[in-house]
């Protein structure tokens, strides 16, 4: 990766709303060129999407979230992909990952209107899949840090206003 691409990606990672003009002010790459670079990075799938990090705890949040870990019994000829594809299709599932280690294989984040909804979703739709040996559901009680952003920062320390 060249220095300019790294610059553009880092600036967007910090602020997805940065415009090509904003980025140009910080890099001296002409705005038209920045726009083209971003288009290329999007087309190549390097930039997947732009999203806001929201502290749902501040507004009234209609959903509950849980992490669900599952142990998988692999079938001959099928890796994890087939099962993963199937779980991904549920709109209730926000993220899904394959994990190392022996206790569990897959972990996903799921949301629903109530704890009961989530529990029944896992029991009905996931636990009943042939390859799934067992599941373990953990409801999220509080989010401290999300995507590198600390949600509640304690009082900020201020440096002196003038120094040599």
């Amino acid at each position: 990766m060249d220095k300019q691409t790294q610059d553009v990606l880092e600036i967007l990672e910090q602020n997805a709303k940065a415009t090509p003009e904003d980025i140009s002010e910080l890099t001296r790459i002409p705005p038209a060129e920045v726009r083209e670079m971003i288009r290329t990075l999007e087309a190549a799938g390097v930039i997947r999407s732009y999203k806001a990090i929201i502290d749902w705890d501040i507004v009234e949040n209609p959903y509950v979230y849980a992490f669900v870990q599952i142990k998988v019994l692999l079938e001959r000829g099928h890796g994890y992909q087939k099962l993963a594809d199937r779980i991904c299709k549920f709109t209730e599932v926000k993220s899904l990952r394959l994990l190392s280690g022996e206790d569990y294989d897959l972990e996903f984040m799921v949301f629903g209107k109530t704890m009961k909804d989530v529990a029944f979703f896992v029991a009905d739709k996931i636990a009943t899949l042939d390859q799934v040996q067992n599941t373990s559901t953990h409801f999220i009680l509080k989010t401290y840090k999300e995507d590198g952003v600390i949600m509640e920062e304690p009082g900020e320390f201020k440096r002196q206003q003038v120094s040599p």
Partner: protein
Amino acid sequence: MTEIPKSSPRKVDQLDYSKYITHKMKNVPPSGIRKYFDIAAGVENVISLGVGEPDFVTPWHIREMCIHSLEKGQTSYTSNFGIPELREEISKKYRREYGLDYDPASEILVTTGVSEALDIAIRCVINPGDEILIVQPTYVAYVPEIVLGGGVPVVVPTRAEDDFKIKPEELEAKITQKTKAIIINYPHNPTGAVMTRKDYEAIAPIIEKHDLVVISDEVYECLTYEGEHAPFSIIDGMRERTIILNGFSKSYAMTGLRLGYILAPAPLIAAMMLIHQYCMMCAPITSQIGGLEALKNGEDEMKSMVREFNRRRILITDGFNKLGLDCFEPKGAFYAFPSIKSTGLTSEEFADKFFAAQRVITIPGTAFGEAGKGHLRCAYATSRDDIKIALDRFDEFLKTL
């Protein structure tokens, strides 16, 4: 609550204290920066471009090592030279990055910040009346340190049109029989100038011819945005006569932890170590442990801070030029040094009126000596948002002139 008894009335005005204070103090100028600290106190909505330290907090892995060492009870003195592992890492860094060999046992001394390093380096080389060359604009501590050390500071001026580099003929013109040493400081506070290897090679023969010692303050080493930093001792024939000062304040955002170091030939280190041993004993152990962690595992985070400084550097430099304030391209440190000559105001007038009207702190170039006339020092070690607001306020202010 028990009342604390009031102290007895002081008889300050009955004594002439000046007779107790060393005569040397008469020649120590007050810092031109201090005033701006005082006028900003208590004012709301101030943006400061007057801060000579990173706005980043020391990376957590470094702070965490310091905390862990405190928990373990590591609060003792260390070797006067500094903990051996830290000197070993410093030595490795110079070998790896520059191919320079400094023996951790005899050629490296860990100090309480570069300020102490500067103080003991100056005290180590000065005999009463020795002339020490300084390059203007100059960091505020050099002149007072030389004066307190009993030496005579002699100014080598530099100018924006020469990119604030030292011109060989300018340097040689200031050398007399009494000249003992020169203090250089690249990347440069307050201008952001750098000297390349080639620039150094042009002045090295003069230094050798006149048998000078070079004190090279390279605390902004890692904040070099274009080209590679060149430690002065990398120049042929210069290692033997160079005292390099470096530290962790700027590169690793560790200003308040006060940690620096000196690289120099063994006899000079031995002499500086004697002063250090009696006036300081050793650098704080907590900071040394943090410094060791910084050198071992801090490169990624340091480089990401440098990349962010670079973005702000472009933002502020281009911003000034767009406003019609000629700004020399700073290639290192985190200062821009725009010229305000086009406004017809002096540096001090500009800084004072600008603060009064727009509540932005800038430091007049004259705080760094006569050669800073017509300029302002603007530190961009502050958030991009603040830099943008400051530029808008510059714009507003310029319209009123």
